[in-house]
């Protein structure tokens, strides 16, 4: 997994609430049994003029010149709700998104971000609005800076916000660690747990 330490990048405001994973990547764009090749399908329903074309919709924010090379999204409540498809996160990552700032996230989506090196930052609605108001004045210049170690978001004109993140996920992101590997350090605990339950609740275990 790609590590996340600090990031300074162009942010784009997508200030709707309840942007679901179908909107982030429509099902029809998930063509292969692969985590790759999904970036092109990101936001396909709004990014292209027609669902079956690749002609860019000039009104969609990420297609505008001011927002070229966006790496941070500023968005509304419950971003990433809906379907559990991790393809939404793989598509965002492939497009180049490194962080998403929202008042809240869909729970499965939030975890999926953590597992794929995208930092989901929870800030109040007001903070998201203040950041958006500022960057909109000149998106290419007024970049946003995120420091994961310090848990801080700051803007060029001096806005500062702190955010919470659980320490395990933070460590994993900072060091680009693989969560399966980390968990397997607890192999002895898992084994002991299995032996104990097998005694107590033997019916839980299916035999082939």
């Amino acid at each position: 997994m790609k590590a996340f330490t600090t990031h300074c990048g162009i942010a784009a405001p997508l200030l709707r609430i309840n942007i679901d994973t179908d909107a982030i990547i429509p099902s029809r764009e998930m063509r292969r049994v692969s985590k790759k090749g999904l970036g092109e399908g990101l936001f396909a329903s709004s990014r292209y003029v027609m669902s079956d074309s690749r002609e860019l919709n000039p009104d969609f924010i990420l297609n505008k010149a001011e927002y070229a090379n966006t790496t941070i999204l500023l968005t509304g409540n419950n971003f990433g709700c809906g379907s559990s498809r991790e393809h939404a996160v793989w598509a965002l990552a492939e497009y180049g998104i490194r962080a998403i700032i929202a008042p809240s996230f869909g729970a499965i989506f939030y975890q999926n971000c953590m597992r794929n090196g995208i930092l989901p930052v929870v800030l109040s609605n007001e903070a998201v609005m203040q950041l958006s108001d500022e960057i909109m004045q000149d998106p290419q210049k007024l970049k946003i800076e995120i420091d994961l170690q310090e848990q801080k978001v700051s803007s060029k004109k001096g806005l500062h916000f702190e955010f919470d993140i659980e320490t395990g996920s933070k460590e994993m992101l900072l060091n680009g660690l693989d969560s399966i590997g980390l968990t397997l350090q607890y192999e002895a605990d898992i084994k002991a747990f299995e032996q104990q339950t097998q005694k107590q609740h033997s019916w839980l275990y299916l035999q082939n």
Partner: protein
Amino acid sequence: MSKTLFQKIWDAHQVKSLPDGTYLIYIDRVFLHERTGSIALQSLAEAGRKVRHPEQVFCTMDHIVDTFPGRGDDTVMPSGKDFIQATRKEAKAAGITLFDIGDEQQGIAHVISPELGIVQPGLTLVCPDSHTCTQGALGAAAWGIGSSEAEHAMATQTLRINKPKLMRVWFEGELNSCVTAKDMILHLISKFGAHGGAGHAIEFAGPTVEALSIEARMTLCNMAVEFAAFTGLVAPDQKTIEYLEGRPYVPKGEQWHQAVEYWHSLVTDDDALFDTEIKIDVAEIEPTITWGTSPQHACGISQTVPELESLASEDARTAATRALAYQALQPGDKLLDLKIDCAFIGSCTNSRIEDLRKAAAILKGRKVASHVKAICVPGSQQVKAAAEREGLHQVFLDAGFEWRESGCSMCFYAGGEHFGKQQRVLSTSNRNFESRQGPETRTHLASPETVAASALNGCITDPRTMMRTN
């Protein structure tokens, strides 16, 4: 100490509390499907990792597989075949149980897992699919995860997670005629918002829930995720035990008795505390339907689309404005009598035998309006077979419905079959998001009774007006 049902299950599965404040939770069962499970199996194998307990992992073909009679590996969705064949290959290599196309136990994951007794009270079950919460109806902790988490669960038989907050939604009172579990959950979401249950494991309880059948409880729990909940669940009771007895994967003999004894302990203690409690008198609920593009955009069927000023926040007004433009509706529009183009009875929300019976009771001897394309897709091959034994398929066919093989089908658009642009669909599924059922398709969610009644009249119809007196 007094504990809630969820707390009891959680405690019984806690392998370790980790230094970062999360928990290592033991996972008893993993369920996969060909759309997200294929990639999890493949990626696990590529990383050189093994499935720790293949006998606890199950997989079905439900999302991409066609539902036309005589189906095979080919799909209307371009490249669907790749998903199907990759899943078959990976499932075999991993040594897990696959309910393949043509298998009489095949069906939608959340329909067949309870039907086969794979999910049981008190156990933990995860699936890379958001509607896994459906299975909480059996008194299990069952929740949806991403593909990477599914890999983690298969490789380690655990997940590292935060403990969700606890909520109880208490339903009491007598249900009005034609009001079902679907209407209860739509009502709840419309009242408290699509974000209302965020971060919570929700126990649905109270006399009305106790009176619901197990299948209706599945409908209720199914949409917990549309309420942004971590999961939903219902305490097991005598009905749960009777439902499970004799199903293929439940314990047998002495083990059955031990299990039942344990299941009896899985109730919320009298003075256990929840972080949040909601109480709803179901007498206030009428058949409920959505008007917009979020499950929270729902109201009683006799009501009108709300005026924007009545909505709580600027965000909600902006979202509603966009939703109404998409749905080609205006504030103040009446929902009753609105012309529909299609009707869909199916999905993990409402595709079980009781759902089909209720719809058939309304359809019997009647015909779907000639301009309506109507499709019924049983949730599993076993549901389909049971319906055919009762002759329900004939009722659907005679009324003008298509009768399909089981799967997710038109619940979502995978890139294959869909209802068509700007078509207004009355659907028993759980998501009315933009383009969920196809590009620009306009979805209204409702119960099987409401969908059946509306299909007959060709417009949104209150099912109470179509009930027979005999």
